[in-house]
């Protein structure tokens, strides 16, 4: 029953926060609900760690893999809520665009994402995945400007079509299960499927067809090239706390859905086919996003393409498989989330101080905004994968796996893209930071909520780079055990 707790907290919290018109009180209520949400997720993770997989009714289940993603949701959502409390301080009361609506939609969004990770049924998982699109579409269009409305519409249409293909994939897998003689009531349950697939001889053609539709469908939400067209628009036009949530939590939730299917078919002959598809999509996303990073003019679009690139890296880790590949991919999910949130928080400060995100509109930031610049530098050094930050560890693990499996072409391309991205980030950020300051920032000092979250994110990146905490290693191993 403990699995119901985080779901109840978020959905009731969403309704509760709507009752408070005063922005100040609404913010406090939201922070309290957020605290409860993190505590309840912590309780779930602890119980899974202590007692193994948990089950509540026929539709909810959590195992080691869910735990890892729940930790990611808890950590990032806490950072985002604290950051938003400062970010929204100037926002007034408007129809659908006041802090209370913002927080209510955020909790609804979190509810759908937590449900994705707790679903025991692939149909429910699909319903909740579509729910994430619906809950976040209004958040993407929150500012109601021309750009925001366009981005929101595009997001809604592209992701709904993409996710419709995932439904088709789900149905095909269900068909394969029923044809192989599974009980229709259990044929959508991922635990039952994981047991049945190796034994019952599913029609390999149907399983392949299902996986193609699943990777295209959920891949749209992950942001794989060429289905990524919604991603830079939505990230750039959404309020900054939402950009961080989209990039650090939503993309990973979609990745979670894909990993579940990968786990189901990992014991069949189809798994080689699935892994090849993952490698192809991963490499394509890395290369295209890496090149597009070079030509970006808007800071948040730059970061959005960097997310596409990192999703590609994770897909390559999963596609390679093997102990190091899986370890790297799962660790990279968390590392990328932390680094990308830090970068988005810095971008939010730049926007609030200079009123623009165009990178040619800002120079000499190192002198006018020293604290934000520090966070930006830490974040970008981490995201390009330099030691001593944690992304180096996970990228290195994936690369070692590629070499040990003799995928030399892949490994070389991987390295080339990483260097190109490094060059791109250095080129853009040196122009942003150095030179004569233009324009006076509105408020050069960070407020407590901002430096707290930026500090926590930076310290986490450094700590995980130097030494992964024992507790986290155990959870990673429990997650990897699901995929073996």
């Amino acid at each position, binding site marked *: 029953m403990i699995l119901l707790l985080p779901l109840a907290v978020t959905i009731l919290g969403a309704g509760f926060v709507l009752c408070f018109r005063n922005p100040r009180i609404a913010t406090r209520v939201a922070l309290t609900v957020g605290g409860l949400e993190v505590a309840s997720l912590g309780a779930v993770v602890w119980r899974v760690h202590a007692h193994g997989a948990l089950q509540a009714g026929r539709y909810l289940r959590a195992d080691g893999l869910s735990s890892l993603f729940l930790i990611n949701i808890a950590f990032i959502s806490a950072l985002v809520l604290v950051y938003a409390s400062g970010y929204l301080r100037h926002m007034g009361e408007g129809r659908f665009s006041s802090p209370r609506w913002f927080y209510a939609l955020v909790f609804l969004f979190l509810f759908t994402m937590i449900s994705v990770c707790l679903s025991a049924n692939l*149909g429910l998982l699909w319903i909740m995945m579509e729910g994430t699109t619906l809950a976040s579409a209004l958040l993407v269009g929150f500012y109601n400007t021309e750009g925001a409305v366009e981005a929101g519409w595009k997001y809604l249409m592209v992701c709904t079509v993409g996710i419709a293909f995932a439904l088709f994939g789900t149905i095909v897998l269900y068909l394969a299960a029923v044809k192989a003689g599974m009980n229709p009531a259990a044929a959508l349950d991922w635990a039952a499927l994981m047991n049945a697939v190796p034994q019952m001889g599913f029609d390999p053609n149907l399983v392949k067809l299902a996986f193609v539709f699943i990777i295209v469908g959920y891949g749209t939400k992950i942001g794989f090239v060429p289905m990524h067209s919604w991603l830079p628009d939505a990230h750039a036009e959404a309020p900054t706390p939402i950009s961080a949530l989209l990039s650090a939590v939503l993309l990973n939730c979609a990745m979670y859905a894909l990993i579940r299917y990968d786990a189901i078919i990992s014991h069949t002959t189809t798994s080689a086919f699935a892994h090849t598809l993952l490698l192809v999509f991963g490499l394509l996303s890395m290369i295209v996003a890496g090149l*597009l990073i070079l030509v970006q003019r808007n800071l948040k679009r730059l970061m959005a393409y960097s997310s596409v690139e990192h999703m590609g890296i994770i897909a390559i880790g999963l596609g390679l498989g093997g102990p190091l590949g899986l370890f790297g991919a799962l660790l990279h999910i968390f590392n990328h989330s932390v680094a990308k949130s830090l970068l988005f928080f810095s971008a939010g400060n730049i926007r609030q101080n200079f009123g623009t995100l165009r990178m040619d509109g800002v120079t000499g930031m190192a002198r006018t905004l020293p604290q934000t610049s520090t966070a930006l530098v830490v974040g970008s050094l981490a995201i390009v994968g330099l030691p001593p930050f944690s992304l180096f560890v996970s990228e290195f693990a994936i690369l070692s796996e590629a070499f040990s499996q003799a995928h030399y072409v892949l490994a070389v391309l991987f390295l080339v893209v990483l260097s190109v991205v490094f060059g791109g980030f250095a080129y853009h950020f040196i122009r942003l930071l150095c030179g004569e300051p233009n324009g006076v920032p509105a408020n050069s000092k960070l407020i407590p909520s901002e430096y707290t979250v930026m500090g926590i994110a930076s310290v986490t990146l450094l700590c995980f780079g130097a030494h992964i905490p024992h507790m986290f290693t155990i959870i990673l191993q429990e997650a990897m055990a699901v995929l073996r």
Partner: protein
Amino acid sequence: MGLVEIATGKVLSSFSVFLFLTILLLVVARRISTAILLFSAQSAIITAEVLATGFRERLAEAYVVGALVFLIKVVLIPRAFFRLVDRLKTPRDVKASTTPTQSVFIAAAMIYLSYAAVHSYGQSVRVPEDALAAAVALILTGAFLMVSRNKALMQMLGLLVLENGIYLAALTTTYGMPLVIEIGIFFDILIGLLLMGIFTFRIRDTFDHLDVSKLRRLRG
């Protein structure tokens, strides 16, 4: 053999032909209201198919699902669409980027393609080839409407046609998903349409038109 059995047999054997008819009419429809009516008719055919399948396979759940499909797709959604068209006060043409002749040829090619695509799978899963081909053709038509019609409302309609296709594929191959899941999917569709409705108002208010092909501020 009773009348009901005969009717069931007729529905199951011939509904794909009527679905192909709605596809061909949909791609040449010039007014949004015609397209909405065609969608409604298409959903009615699918309702008949759900009920017939339920009768033949003796599935009590199917009658609930049939009632839901009828209520949501034949009555509620078309009515909501008509209200949206009224309230938005937008010109009523679909703004096609292909001529009707081209559209018919493309639709015919898509139907042919669907038969070619399901041919190998039809035998392995033992379902009527026509039904599966109709489902795939609906999916393709929905996608085609979404990319070739510039009105926001027509894109929403294209999405619904695509969804009808996926639903039909599920129905013909597995007699539908478990009931709880079906209800969840319907719920998602309704909320999705509600949100798209909100966005159409926002597009009209910010841009003064509903031509989504002109929304191209965000590039690169």
